[in-house]
């Protein structure tokens, strides 16, 4: 556990440097985002920036809009009928709600890992090459390389390299979730969205995924929604606290957990509600 906390301290120190940097380091800039499910105002005036090669945790009680927000980042939220939005989410400087911005294009850059492991009922190999195949890669050699690289990236290669043709449903829950991460890495995204990726996993599998996140952030920018405040404290560089569809506080994780500005944040992280 201590190894997990240590690098975070360094990250916190280097955060001061980030303050001088310009918008190039921002992967996402959310500007006055509002979102409604029908008449239910689910996100209110969200302003939030996501930084490159960092882990940004989103915490908050159930129904606070944290899942809605992360699903807005790759426009997955549009699968729900009757969703309306106002405001902007800029990904690398472009508004993703722009009509000319193809949603498929966005999602090749922004991968997602879901709450429940959701591998396809196909072989391990087929699961990983799904994304590349979708995007027209047919060369067997390239696909094989992608499979190895992605599974290694998701720390699953050693466990499955001898049974790539086996059905993914034969894997344990934790392995399935890492397979889903590998599947996501296979499209070589820029950002990885994780919607409570460990809530269906046992503690050991959870630890593995957390360790993986620490490694992955060197190459990717990661946004993780979590119910587990210790998890947010362990793995993230910045934390956003959502409550009733609003961002109550957004700051470096250390600051949020040691010295929160807002009374409601303090109440939440000390377990007084939620």
């Amino acid at each position, binding site marked *: 556990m201590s190894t997990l906390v240590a690098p975070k301290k360094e990250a916190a120190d280097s955060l001061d440097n980030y303050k001088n940097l310009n918008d190039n380091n921002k992967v996402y800039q959310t500007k006055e985002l509002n979102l409604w499910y029908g008449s239910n105002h689910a996100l209110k005036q969200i302003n939030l920036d996501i930084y490159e090669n960092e882990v940004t945790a989103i915490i908050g009680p159930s129904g606070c809009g944290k899942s809605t927000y992360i699903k807005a980042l*790759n426009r*997955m939220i549009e*699968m729900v*009928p009757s969703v309306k939005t106002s405001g902007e989410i800029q990904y690398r400087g472009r508004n993703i709600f722009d009509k000319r911005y193809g949603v*498929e*294009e*966005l*999602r*090749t850059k922004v*991968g*997602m890992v*879901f709450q*429940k492991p*959701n*591998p*396809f*009922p196909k072989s391990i190999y087929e699961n990983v090459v*799904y*994304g590349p*195949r*979708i*995007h027209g890669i047919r060369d067997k050699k390239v696909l094989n390389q992608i499979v190895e690289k992605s599974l290694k990236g998701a720390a699953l290669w050693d466990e499955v390299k001898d049974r790539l043709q086996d059905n993914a*449903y034969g894997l344990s829950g934790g392995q399935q979730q890492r397979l*889903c991460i590998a*599947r*996501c890495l296979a*499209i070589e995204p820029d950002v990885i969205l994780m919607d409570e990726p460990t809530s269906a996993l046992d503690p050991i599998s959870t630890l593995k995924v957390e360790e993986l996140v620490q490694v992955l952030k060197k190459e990717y920018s990661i946004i993780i929604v979590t119910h587990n405040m210790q998890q947010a404290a362990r793995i993230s560089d910045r934390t956003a606290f959502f409550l009733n569809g609003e961002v109550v506080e957004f700051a470096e994780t250390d600051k949020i957990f040691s010295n929160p500005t807002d009374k409601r944040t303090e109440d939440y992280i000390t377990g007084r509600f939620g």
Partner: protein
Amino acid sequence: MKLINHDQVLKKMSPRKWKNSVFKGLFMLATAFALVVLAILLYRIITQGIGYLDWQFLQSLPSRDPEQAGIKTALIGTIWLMGVVAPVTLILGVGTAIYLEEYASKNKFTSLIQINISNLAGVPSIVFGLLGLTVFVRALTLGTSVLAAGLTMSLLVLPIIIVASQEAIRSVPMELREASFGMGANKWQTIVRVVMPAALPGILTGAILALSRAIGETAPLVVLGLPLFLAFLPQSVFDMFTVLPMQIYNWTSRPQEEFHAVAAGGIIVLLVMLIVMNSIAVLIRNKFQKRY
């Protein structure tokens, strides 16, 4: 203070158990009734018809002489009919199901379509016969051809295959679609690569059940005016033909006792065909059934 008196509860225990076994018996009786009727039916048909059932019976044309009468025209006619019904219903039915489940937005219009499809499944088959007579036989002047009958039968079983396919598509977990969309797949890619493979067993099961229904139906074909006696085979979809149930109906309506036995032989052929098809449906379902 205790609110439940356990002595009282124990006293009432035996009438409760008795009631339970009475109802168990009643439900068993209900099941047995259906089974007994089926068994009697099968026994009568098999004892009557088995004598006529041989290779020659399958290969002979119908005849006025019961000893010579065969089922060839009807058997080949049924296969021709399936040749039209299977592709038409699969393409139209699965297409409709995909559109309704994956593409159509849920509004009043689509729910109206949905209600109508479900209602069509309950429309008496003879009504479809009248429709077929008006549209295909007369308006499109297809006559009592394989094509006209095939299209009529397709309309009859379309609701079955649409509803079955819709259920199969709906049972594919949303998470799998999300996974696909999340990697930048579009709707068509998701349907072809994720939804259809997962829904295929359900769709095939529905298709085979629909075809079984089409094989056994007689009423709409009577309305279309299919011949009861035909001594030649169809050469194309525009030719006249007859099918197994029509042939059986013809034989049973003859006065000679021998023909009733021939009819029983025909029924056995029809039943074997249905059992084989239903078994295939079950096999497909078991083989491809996946847990999510």
